[in-house]
């Protein structure tokens, strides 16, 4: 090969590889750093005081004047309460479809009885956490990135700096706390609602006895099924909020840039959620056989 040709091969084939792996590692570094800083901010919140105040109803009015608490509470409402209808529909239909599809198979070997167990286990171990996380990444992760990205390009983040306020503490930490609390809660609801969907189909469509169906459901469920699902939800919450905040803060280039980082935020969250799910499922398979 002539030197000139070799050089052009290097430039066209090898250099982009180097550049994209560089970009990959700087992304990894940047988002991990953000997560680390957020965890520090997380630890710096007055958790002890909040727990005490929450436990004592006559101290709730103290919380009403606590700005940090109000920020977190606002986000919990936006992230969690407002997402409930969507999670409700998704998991109800998923539970119903799951029951119908397994019935289609199990009828062949006259084992419809096991529909309850199948729905319950699939919902709590897998579909509840993953579907809820995907729905929330699309609904909430995108909204967080769009909001923070818009604040970035309209200089509101700069304005926070000039007002001696750390955007991380003021914007990122409340969102991460809210997602960390609300995603497991939504997942728990999703589990129950999915089971309810399966029950509706099993009992009213397939004619399995109500108490039989419930027995099959509860007898198959172990604490670890719920626990591993909720554990996954906490990990997914960390993924969604970290990526959403990172993409938001790193936005550049006006409205177009906001659109770009919002898309990226959702895409990257989706990929990481699926990958993390695979990893943790395998891990739990060996840790809690």
């Amino acid at each position, binding site marked *: 090969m002539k030197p000139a040709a070799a050089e052009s091969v290097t430039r066209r084939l090898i250099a982009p590889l180097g550049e994209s792996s560089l970009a990959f590692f700087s992304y990894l570094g940047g988002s991990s750093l953000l997560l680390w800083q957020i965890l520090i901010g997380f630890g710096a919140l007055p958790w002890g005081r909040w727990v005490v105040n929450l436990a004592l109803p006559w101290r709730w009015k103290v919380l009403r004047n606590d700005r940090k608490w109000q920020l977190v509470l606002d986000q919990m409402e936006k992230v969690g309460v407002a997402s409930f209808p969507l999670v409700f529909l998704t998991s109800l239909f998923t539970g119903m479809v799951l029951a119908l599809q397994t019935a289609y198979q199990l009828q062949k070997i006259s084992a419809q009885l096991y529909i309850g167990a199948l729905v319950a286990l699939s919902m709590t171990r897998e579909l509840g956490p993953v579907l809820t996380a995907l729905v929330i990444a699309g609904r909430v992760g995108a909204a967080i990135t769009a909001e923070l990205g818009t*604040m970035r390009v309209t200089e*509101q983040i*700069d304005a926070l*700096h*000039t*007002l*001696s*306020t750390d955007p991380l503490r003021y914007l990122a930490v409340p969102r991460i706390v809210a997602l960390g609390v609300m995603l497991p809660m939504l997942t728990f609801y999703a589990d129950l609602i999915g089971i309810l969907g399966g029950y509706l189909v099993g009992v009213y469509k397939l004619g399995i006895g109500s108490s039989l169906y419930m027995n099959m459901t509860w007898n198959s469920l172990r604490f670890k099924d719920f626990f591993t699902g909720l554990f996954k939800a906490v990990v997914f919450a960390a993924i969604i909020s970290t990526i959403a905040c990172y993409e938001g803060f790193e936005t550049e280039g006006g409205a177009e840039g906001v659109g770009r980082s919002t898309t990226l935020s959702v895409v990257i969250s989706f990929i990481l959620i699926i990958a993390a799910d695979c990893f943790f499922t395998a891990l739990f398979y060996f840790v809690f056989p």
Partner: protein
Amino acid sequence: MIEIINLSKTFNSHQVLDGANLDIRDGETMVIIGRSGGGKTVLLKHIIGLMQPDAGQVIVEGEEIFRLTPEELGRLRLKFGMLFQGAALFDSLTVGENVAFALREHTPMGEEEIQERVRECLELVGLKGVERQKPAELSGGMRKRVGLARALAMRPRVILYDEPTTGVDPMMADVINRLIKQLHDRLKVTGVVVTHDMVSAYKVGDRIAMLHEGKIIQVGTPEEIRGTSNPVVRRFILGISDNGEAKVS
């Protein structure tokens, strides 16, 4: 009090600042003029540490601000107020909450005292009864003035104004010019005013500095600038384009 030394900044191979030097004295109002896109906003953002330079320093009250830790920088910024060119109001908060933001974050002031201060700051910029409105409900000029009110709320020692009179009507521009002058005369506030409104520049400036091609090419009192012999500055203040007549293509 604010020393800008050899400041250089490049954005994707586009050199915006190229060794800019400027001394801003305690209590004076320094006006920075220059062409649109000439790097005035970039210069202002360096003074308050929002951007990191490629080379050079900014020294505020003897402290090199690019060496400060985030905490120290946060403490230093409490003495600063900044009006952004695009106002940069928080659009999820009301006007009142915007102006009160730093008071709530950094002072132990009670709610009534805060409301009092908010009303006072809004009145200074000629606004009344807009506390409950959202920034999106205001006109561009009103937003700018709310931004100024927010910059004033903490009673800062130094105020950075990025084009305070752009986008407001001439009468309101006069109100703002007077306000800048008052803050300077009565409260001895140090001001840095970026503008291309020469009326305003002559009115509020103790000294005027011209930023051209990344450097400060002349600093002087308004009289000195008016009588300048530097051709670039002359053309700028008289508003004559480079080639004398407009090219139409």
